[in-house]
């Protein structure tokens, strides 16, 4: 008797695993080449071009700016040191994403028990009454608290996909895993969130409202 199976990833996703990245433009490759050779002006240009995307990735994974400064330093150091091995087969932002998520992963492993107590931001664009905004803020805080209790790679995959709005392919590229693995991680994170939401009405309400607006 065959075991019942559940489809984890539809066949359509397979095509994405073989999709080729559009080639990186020559200007970017030249910039990378100059930066890799120690050209400080090129390095500063790269820093300015990548700082906000890398910060956004870290912020959405971690849920706050606490320790983001140190982690951004770490991520940029890794990025500049890895430039000699960048061949342009992936977009530079994808390359930076991969490094940033790796830095975030290492940080989360070290800080496994630290909950996200900082509010992710005071400028939540959740319209409504002040009470509604407060509830939304609390919901986000509890969301990140639930994420903090997960394994780092589940959290990162979920944050990139569901909070940062990346595609499945982008999540797989940023985390350096296959589409199947990325989807599996997101799925597992969702299950854990579901479990947490069953015991937390505020979190459940936040997730339900977020779902309704998606």
């Amino acid at each position: 008797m065959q075991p019942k199976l559940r489809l984890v990833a539809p066949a359509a996703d397979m095509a994405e695993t073989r999709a080729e990245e559009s080639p990186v433009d020559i200007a970017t490759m030249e910039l990378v080449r100059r930066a890799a050779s120690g050209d400080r002006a090129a390095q500063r240009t790269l820093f300015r071009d990548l700082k906000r995307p890398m910060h956004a990735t870290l912020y959405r994974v971690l849920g706050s700016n606490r320790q983001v400064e140190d982690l951004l330093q770490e991520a940029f150091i890794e990025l500049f040191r890895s430039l000699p091995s960048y061949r342009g087969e992936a977009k530079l932002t994808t390359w930076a994403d991969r490094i940033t998520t790796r830095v975030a992963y290492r940080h989360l492993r070290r800080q496994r028990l630290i909950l996200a107590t900082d509010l992710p931001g005071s400028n939540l664009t959740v319209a409504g009454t002040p009470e509604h905004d407060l509830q939304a803020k609390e919901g986000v805080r509890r969301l990140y608290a639930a994420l903090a209790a997960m394994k780092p790679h589940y959290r990162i995959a979920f944050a990139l996909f569901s909070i940062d709005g990346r595609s499945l392919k982008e999540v797989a590229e940023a985390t350096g895993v296959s589409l199947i693995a990325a989807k599996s991680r997101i799925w597992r994170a969702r299950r854990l969130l579901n479990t947490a939401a069953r015991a937390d009405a505020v979190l459940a309400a936040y997730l339900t409202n977020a779902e309704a607006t998606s």
Partner: protein
Amino acid sequence: MSSVRFGCRVPVEPLPHQTWTRIESAVFARLDDKSGLSLPPLSGSAASPRPLAWHWRASMGCFLAASGIASVIHSTTSSSAGPEPEPPAATDSRAQDGLHVATGAETRSVAIGDHRFTLSERSEIVARGDDADGWRVELSRGRIELEVAPRRDRPPFIIRSGDVEVRVVGTLLSVQREGASTEVHVSRGIVEVEHRGRIVRLRPGDRWRDGTLSGTAHGTTGAAREGDASHERRAARPVGEHRPEPLARARWLEHWFEPSSEGENVADVESLRARLGGGAAR
């Protein structure tokens, strides 16, 4: 919760300008601060390893690997009939353009970042480079064993022995050189050997020597299998870029499906199997 995505993304709280200035200054200060190599303490016996951060860059004739140890053996070619002279005691010195390590009658172990590095007796290496540009080890004589962690996006780890260069992304293999002859043995992971324009992929148990491949993993002996175009593409893949090998249908299905006690979405499974020509639902 049926939907994966959230309608409102958590907005990013921006960092103040002063914070960015601080980050930028710290990043470039650290890039400028190339501390170089830290030498392990000299001793007559195998020393405790001290972390060193070495990165290696491939140039030609390279091996791609998955994880583990690489050992490079180089023995001096000697046609003299007399006994070898007593090897000098172990020495370390910072050569003008790198680190020079030589062993005498003892072995020597060193930790290099997350890599472990052992020199056998009567061995000598010179290591050059830095973290930013990558590191290269020149093996003059003897044998070294290296445990190289997966490189991911870091520059590869390079060992040069004569006209053979080994690029290690992270692997468990040994490379031995005797005169002009080079032998590669893979214990774990997958290694690609490029030699004279040909690329051969080695798996655990494979042994390659001067173009001849043998091993228990493939049960083949004789002339080395030439790499096909896919091997060459993989060889050209940048360090840290991982592409899974194509899966056979059965393995692909194993990866796509997971056992479910709830039996959800069985219909999707059935339709997928049907689309794949796997036959009717069982």
